[in-house]
């Protein structure tokens, strides 16, 4: 038999029993619709969460700390080490007597050569004097790439992150702003702030100047001042994000690079000659793609450093997603199961009705396979129709629910978004799954059809 004839037969037979076809297909439509809706919702939620992170590019980052401990799942051996874990490590790092390998320029170089590593940059903090009007204060400035800033790491009370890594712009904490007698956070963006740094300067000119002056100037320090503009005011800056923020002032790396400064992230820095073997408290590693995170992480850990990657967190999240998906699918499957029983019922009915016709088919030369396939195409067609319309139904219901959720959420100040996601594979998958389920439901009835004894079926009554 030709494929086109199977299709024609199936179509013709379903058309002849329009009401029954409609009812059976409706069952499938509802089942598939529910499943699609559930799944699309799960997908939408996951997409929103994952996108949030992806947009920020944070999955490509690994934070490296001196010291072998890391936060990777299943590796924490110390049961008391939960809450203060990170903080404690940060202290360990700054411990001069710390026995592990040093996170210095050579280490950075070695990390840079690991396959998959795109960039390595130290997380730098340096001391500086900042002045607003007449008020001047000493603080630690932290260098934070613009994209990391935009990652949502920082709760901005006003303003925005700096647009790129280049401008002389800074973000200041509300507490420091207050202490500087600055304007209200809302009014702060645009405020000019002067940043002054001290550098160790062993240049000949400085040494000469030192030699001919006395008193306070008798140290090899140079003071440099830079003009910055406040672009944002941060609320709490703390240990919440993936990159520890411990400073009240954040500036982009480009601006930092143009500044002459003394890195003070480690006590070692004070004693190390500039550009030499300075130690960093932590280093950010950017990898080419999230897939590289795991291998790069292992290699860095093999070097004796501790690591932290948001990717690990995502892995935990994935498990959560999976459980959510399973739950949603389980609920959606109830409809499909009921629908497939409907298909079995319809097919059994159809075959009983056409018992004699099956006998005729066989008498005129149909093989068992021909007979089975004729009926399988019928149940497959119910699946196809159910899948197509079910997808449509799921989509429409999704739209409606999305509207309802959005109306409620927007009222509470949340941004509008799509809570449902219908990726192409979900659409194709839903149809394929619907057909598959229908075919499986058709197996038993169609095998019965194939086994009909023509002699019995044709015996006149």
């Amino acid at each position, binding site marked *: *038999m030709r494929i086109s004839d199977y299709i024609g037969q199936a179509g013709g037979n379903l058309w002849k029993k329009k009401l029954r076809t409609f009812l059976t297909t409706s069952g499938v439509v509802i089942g598939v619709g529910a499943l699609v809706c559930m799944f699309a919702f799960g997908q939408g939620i996951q997409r929103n969460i994952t996108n949030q992170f992806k947009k920020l590019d944070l999955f490509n980052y690994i934070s490296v700390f001196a010291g072998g401990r890391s936060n990777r799942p299943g590796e924490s051996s110390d049961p008391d080490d939960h809450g203060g874990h990170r903080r404690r490590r940060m202290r360990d790092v700054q411990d001069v007597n710390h026995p592990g390998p040093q996170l210095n320029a050579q280490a950075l170089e070695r990390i840079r050569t690991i396959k998959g590593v795109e960039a390595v940059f130290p997380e730098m903090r340096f001391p500086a004097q900042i002045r607003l009007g007449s008020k001047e204060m000493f603080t630690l400035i932290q260098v934070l790439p613009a994209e990391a800033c935009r990652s949502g790491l920082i709760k901005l009370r006003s303003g925005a992150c700096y647009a790129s890594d280049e401008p002389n712009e800074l973000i200041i904490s509300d507490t420091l702003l207050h202490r500087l007698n600055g304007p209200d956070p809302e009014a702060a963006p645009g405020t000019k702030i002067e940043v002054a740094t001290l550098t160790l300067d062993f240049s000949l000119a400085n040494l000469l100047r030192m030699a001919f002056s006395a008193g306070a100037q008798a140290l090899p320090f140079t003071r440099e001042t830079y003009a910055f503009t406040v672009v944002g005011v941060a609320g709490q800056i703390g240990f919440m994000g993936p990159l520890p923020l411990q400073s009240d002032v954040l500036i982009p790396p480009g601006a930092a690079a143009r500044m002459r400064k003394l890195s003070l992230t480690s006590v070692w820095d004070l004693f190390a000659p500039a550009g030499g073997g300075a130690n960093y408290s932590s280093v950010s590693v950017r990898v080419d793609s999230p897939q590289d995170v795991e291998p790069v992480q292992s290699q860095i850990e093999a070097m004796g450093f501790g690591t932290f990657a948001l990717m690990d967190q995502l892995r935990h999240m994935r498990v959560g997603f999976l459980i959510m998906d399973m739950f949603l699918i389980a609920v959606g499957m109830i409809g499909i199961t009921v629908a497939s029983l409907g298909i079995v019922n319809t097919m059994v009915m159809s075959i009983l009705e056409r018992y004699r*016709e099956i006998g005729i088919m066989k008498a*005129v030369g*149909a*093989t*068992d396979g021909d007979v089975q396939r004729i009926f399988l195409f019928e149940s497959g067609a119910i699946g196809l129709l159910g899948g197509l319309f079910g997808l449509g139904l799921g989509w429409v219901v999704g739209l409606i629910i999305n509207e309802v959720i959005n109306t409620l959420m927007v009222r509470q100040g949340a941004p509008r978004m799509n809570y449902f996601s219908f990726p192409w594979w979900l659409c194709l998958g839903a149809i394929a799954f619907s057909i598959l389920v229908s075919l499986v439901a058709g197996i038993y009835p169609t095998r019965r059809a194939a086994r009909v*004894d023509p002699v019995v079926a044709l*015996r006149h009554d």
Partner: protein
Amino acid sequence: MDVDGFIETKDLGKVYTFGAVQVAALRSVTLSVARGRLIGVTGASGSGKSTLVNLLGGLDRPSSGSIRVDGRLVSDLSKKELALYRRNTIGMIFQSFNLVNAYTALENVAFPLLFAGVAKKDRLQRAEELLRTVGLEARKDHRPTELSGGEQQRVAIARALVNQPQILLADEPTGNLDSKTSRQIVEILSDLNRHRGLTVVMISHEQALLREFADEVIRLHDGDVVDREVLRQKP
């Protein structure tokens, strides 16, 4: 009897079992039919006529003995080969016509070609030709329920011919028809036998018709051939 029969059965037996009861529908039938003959089969109800025809047509398998058609051992064919044998070698006609009521006359005649994998256009064309040969061209779009018994049987004959079989098996084709229509149907079968060289095996209770048209008549009783009467020899 022909030594090299076109259809040959040897000790053909069929036992039906329901539960503990066993019914021997056929006991031991040994037959030989030459190509191109019109054979009448007669006998009391329950004597095994239909069983014999169903076995010859490959609709059923014997419990014992063998069937050979044109040298091929039909009783040894696989399920699938048997379906192909029914499709290509056999045309069957039944007392109750066995047309598909949902189809038109034309679609009924074309039905077997579906399984032969013939394209739809060719199917309908061939079916129309055959409806013309049985004189029902004008009724091609009618459904069986809109046709008289005789017309239905003519549609059934056209359907039996559509795959150009070598053997026509007719199980009481006139059983549901009046005598005038019965005669018309048997005339068509006889015509096909004489002019197309089809070997015909026809079950009938109507002795007069058998005497007039059959080349020989086989009488069954209780699952055995009890009489065989040759009425005509053919060249």
